[in-house]
């Protein structure tokens, strides 16, 4: 084979060469070798990347790159493994420019001609080689020669036709290969492996051909626009014939889908096969169109059906577990064989079909059960799954209605009033732990819990407030054994949380005060420290205004102790007091304490004397004060001498007064007792009932019977016995509590009216002129208890009537303050 002529002459001889091809200047060749080598290392070896030529098309001066990188590519090509050829090549490439200068003159005159059949012969060699490659037969011609042949053709500007010939040759083979797949094995897996094999072969074969025709790739392809590299050409041909043999493509896709489906159904499949075929789709550039789309549709269908089926078959926690597993699987699938870009739409599809569509059903069917069962883990799963499909809002709403529904059961059931507060506390604690552990302390959920609690605790006007006060009373009262101080403290804190939700805090205060008064006056408080701690908690919660009366009560108790001490030391006491009686007095400041209805009673002389002496003492010490005896609060311990033994009786003042009558008489009629004690009729009947019809019967009623009638009479019970020395005769209080209760509530409402009036006047005094709407808004802000707008109107009208306000003459929506 003759050396190629110089470039210059070539361009003269071969006029149909492309315009862009020739102008490279030779002196560039040498110096660039090294540099190019180092660059090329990085980009060789990857068949997919053999598009280097693209750069060079842009700029002809860059031709320097060509030979070197080509040489190198050649060098490192694993298949060919022809290092000597590479060396030759670079030498060959490098030499021509030097002799060129010498030869120039001669060549102009005697132009060497190519053998006439040069192209055909060369091509025949190549063709047989290509054929051999496709048929996987050995070829007689060694690869170096073939390479040289391509090189020669290219140098003689025959690259174009060579390319076309190669293309045609390849097309024939590829088309044949794909056609051979038509009608092949009905077994999809077998078929898929055939396809894979075909693809694998093509890749190998195209690599080989490209190796041979590398020079073509480097020169002709690079320099000609709109011509694919050989590798791309091979892919393109494969794609074309694959789509022509639509049965093959269709069968392949179906096969893939079927395999994935059977994997979803739990069968083991050949993942590498899947992986290779999907890589093929990607390489052919038809992945998203031919595979991904049907795949996602198929997935959608599959999970739609599965979702429906499982929702019916299994319970919610299992379903959620299943969904979680499915999502994980799909994720894995993307790592193992699907294209990475498929992950997002795939997971989204699965989520939509398995979760989104079933959100209401899941919540409906399982939420309550999970909450009731306190299933932290399942709830947490639900939360995290729902957060994937932005369904937390639905979950939050479900939580809200769950709390409301469950809470209503606790709050509205009047028969369970006793357990309301403990149940609520328990419920709240359970919710809190679920919130913490399952709902990752989501702020919105926290607020939902609060709102729902506030709603349900105010479902009933005042009862919850009252019951909370009662609950505290129980906890703070003495005899509440078995709770340590820390436990008590913890309970108080928890109750305070409920207290916070209550709108009618004044109702709470009224009842708390009433109970506190009882505890203090009867000395029943479990621990003054606990009491004080509760007060200070209330103080931080509601401000000192809320608690200063309560604190005043404590002060009164302490002061009373001192007063009693100094009374005992006083001269009045030492000189005048009747002996045999001890008395202690609580002096209560009016206003701090609940108001008690005055109850008249005619005290026995001894007690009267005692009271008078104390009064004298007290008024001498604090002049200008007024003492009023609250007979209904008094209690005494009496020593009783029964024929069958001495006893001490702990009784109320009224009981005392009645019993002391029997010091001088054996038998008394109801009327006698009424006349001499002066106790109000109903109260007296209750008192007598407690003494003669209760557990401890120190009197006997004639005739016997439960209720005290007008003409009953009473006798000292001579035969009274009891195992204990000290006895408490319980007062009958049932009815009293009901009365007490309503009066406490009434008082609260009365107070509220005054508070509304005061608030209106306060606001109007500062504003002077204010519209109705603004006044109502301000009132709602200021008033700390629930109140209806109609009630506010009533108070406003009352103030208009009393001429604190007037309607503006020109605008009836505006009120003027009348100073």
């Amino acid at each position, binding site marked *: 084979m003759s050396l190629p002529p110089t470039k210059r002459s070539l361009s003269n001889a071969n006029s149909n060469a492309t315009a862009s091809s020739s102008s490279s200047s030779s002196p560039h060749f040498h110096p660039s070798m090294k540099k190019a080598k180092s660059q090329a290392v990085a980009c060789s070896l990857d068949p997919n990347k053999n598009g280097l030529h693209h750069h060079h098309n842009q700029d002809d001066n860059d031709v320097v790159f060509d030979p070197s990188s080509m040489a190198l590519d050649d060098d490192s090509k694993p298949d060919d493994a022809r290092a000597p050829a590479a060396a030759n090549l670079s030498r060959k490439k490098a030499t021509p420019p030097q002799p060129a200068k010498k030869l120039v003159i001669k060549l102009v005159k005697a132009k060497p001609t190519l053998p006439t059949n040069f192209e055909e012969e060369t091509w025949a060699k190549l063709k047989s080689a290509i054929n051999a490659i496709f048929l996987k037969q050995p070829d007689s011609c060694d690869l170096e020669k073939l390479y040289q042949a391509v090189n020669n053709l290219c140098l003689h500007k025959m690259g174009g036709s060579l390319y076309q010939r190669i293309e045609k040759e390849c097309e024939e083979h590829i088309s044949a290969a794909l056609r051979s797949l038509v009608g092949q094995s009905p077994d999809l897996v077998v078929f898929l492996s055939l396809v894979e094999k075909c693809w694998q072969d093509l890749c190998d074969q195209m690599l080989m051909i490209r190796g041979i025709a590398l020079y073509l790739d480097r020169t002709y392809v690079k320099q000609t626009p709109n011509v694919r590299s050989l590798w791309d050409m091979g892919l393109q041909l494969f794609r074309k014939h694959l789509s022509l043999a639509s049965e093959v493509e269709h069968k392949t896709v179906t096969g893939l889908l079927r395999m994935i489906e059977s994997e979803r159904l739990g069968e083991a499949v050949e993942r590498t096969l899947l992986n290779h075929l999907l890589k093929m789709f990607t390489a052919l550039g038809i992945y998203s169109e031919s595979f991904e789309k049907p795949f996602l549709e198929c997935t959608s269908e599959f999970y739609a059906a599965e979702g429906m089926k499982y929702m019916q078959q299994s319970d919610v926690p299992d379903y959620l577990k299943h969904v979680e597993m499915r999502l994980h699987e799909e994720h894995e699938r993307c790592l193992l064989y699907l294209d990475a870009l498929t992950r997002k739409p795939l997971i989204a599809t699965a989520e939509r079909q398995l979760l989104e569509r079933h959100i209401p059903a899941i919540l409906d069917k399982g939420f309550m059960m999970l909450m009731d069962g306190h299933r932290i883990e399942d709830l947490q799963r639900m939360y995290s799954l729902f957060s994937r499909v932005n369904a937390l809002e639905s979950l939050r709403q479900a939580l809200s209605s769950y709390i409301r529904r469950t809470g209503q059961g606790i709050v509205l059931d009047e028969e369970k009033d006793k357990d309301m507060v403990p149940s609520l506390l328990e419920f709240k604690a359970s919710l809190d732990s679920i919130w913490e552990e399952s709902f990752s302390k989501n702020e919105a959920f926290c607020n939902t819990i609060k709102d729902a609690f506030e709603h349900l605790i105010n479902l009933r006007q005042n009862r919850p407030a009252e019951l909370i006060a009662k609950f505290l009373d129980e906890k703070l009262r003495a005899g509440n054994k078995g709770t340590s101080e820390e436990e008590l403290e913890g309970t108080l804190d928890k109750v305070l949380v409920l207290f916070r939700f209550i709108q009618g805090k004044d109702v709470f205060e009224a009842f708390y005060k009433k109970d506190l008064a009882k505890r203090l006056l009867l000395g029943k408080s479990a621990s003054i420290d606990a009491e004080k701690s509760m007060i200070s908690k209330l103080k931080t919660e509601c401000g000192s205004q809320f608690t200063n009366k309560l604190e005043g009560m404590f002060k009164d108790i302490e002061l009373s102790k001192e007063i009693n001490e100094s009374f005992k030391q006083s001269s009045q006491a030492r000189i005048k007091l009747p002996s045999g009686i001890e008395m202690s007095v609580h002096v209560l400041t009016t206003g701090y304490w609940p108001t008690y209805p005055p109850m008249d009673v005619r005290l026995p002389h001894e007690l009267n004397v005692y009271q008078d002496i104390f009064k004298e003492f007290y008024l001498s010490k604090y002049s200008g004060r007024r003492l009023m005896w609250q007979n209904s609060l008094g209690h005494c311990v009496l020593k009783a001498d029964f024929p069958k033994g001495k006893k001490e009786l702990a009784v109320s003042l009224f009981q005392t007064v009645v019993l002391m009558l029997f010091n001088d008489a054996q038998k008394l009629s109801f009327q006698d007792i009424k006349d001499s004690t002066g106790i109000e009729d109903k109260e007296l009947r209750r008192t007598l009932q407690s003494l003669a019809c209760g557990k401890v019967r120190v009197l006997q009623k004639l005739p016997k019977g439960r209720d005290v009638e007008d003409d009953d009479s009473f006798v000292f019970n001579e035969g009274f016995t009891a195992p204990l020395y000290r006895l408490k005769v319980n007062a009958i209080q049932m009815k009293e509590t009901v009365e007490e209760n309503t009066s406490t509530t009434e008082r609260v409402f009365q107070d509220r009216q*005054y508070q509304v*009036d005061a608030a209106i*006047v306060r606001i109007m005094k500062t504003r002077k002129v204010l*519209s*109705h*709407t603004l006044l*109502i808004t301000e009132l709602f802000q200021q008033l700390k208890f629930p109140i209806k*707008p*109609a009630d506010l*109107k*009533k108070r*406003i*009208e009352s*103030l*208009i*009537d*009393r*001429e*604190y306000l007037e*309607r503006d003459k020109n605008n*009836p*929506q*505006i*009120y003027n303050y*009348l100073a």
Partner: protein
Amino acid sequence: MPPRAPKRKSAPPNSLSVTSSDGSSVSSKAKTKGFVRIDRMFDSYANSSLGMIDPDGIEAFCSDLGVDCTDVRILMLAWKLKAQRQGYFTQDEWRTGLKELRVDSISKLKKALPELEKEVGKPSNYDNFYSYAFRYCLTEEMQKSVDIESICELLNLVLGAQFRPQVDLLIEYLKVQSDYKVINLDQWINFLRFCQEINFPDLENYDATQAWPLILDNFVDWMREKHSSF
């Protein structure tokens, strides 16, 4: 809160106090020429021992005028005369009132009545007349409100001609409800506003969150309930 000291209450309403000084100056001059016929007319109805026209005199006066004494025009006349006490006209009231009407005989008064009706009908006077009608019913010292019975009659008299359907329903409501036994001036004034401002009978522009007195809120609720129950 206790009711406030009566000092504020005792101040007479503005409309009445404006001309009172004028009236007294007239009385001091006693029998000026212009008042002769008016005074004669007054004397013919007056109870001489009281020195003013009493209910009997008014009845006689009405029959001479040919008008029923429960006619709204008598109320208008009382308004014009600025009569302070129901059923009585003092000489001062009589003089200034008739002088303003420019009449000095029954026949002239008869002719002036339509004119008076027109005057009352003017928007600027009507509100004044309307609240006067309420105050005219306050017969006792310190009285601030009027019982439901009288209010119903007064409504009929004052608003009946203009707002028949509203007045009928309002009266019906006032008689069935049990929350209120008396009506105060504020509520009374708002009855008029209600009739004037609220579309009847659909009530769609009634808004209970506005400053309407509660009694009207209740009235509207009652009407709506009544309506829906049909």
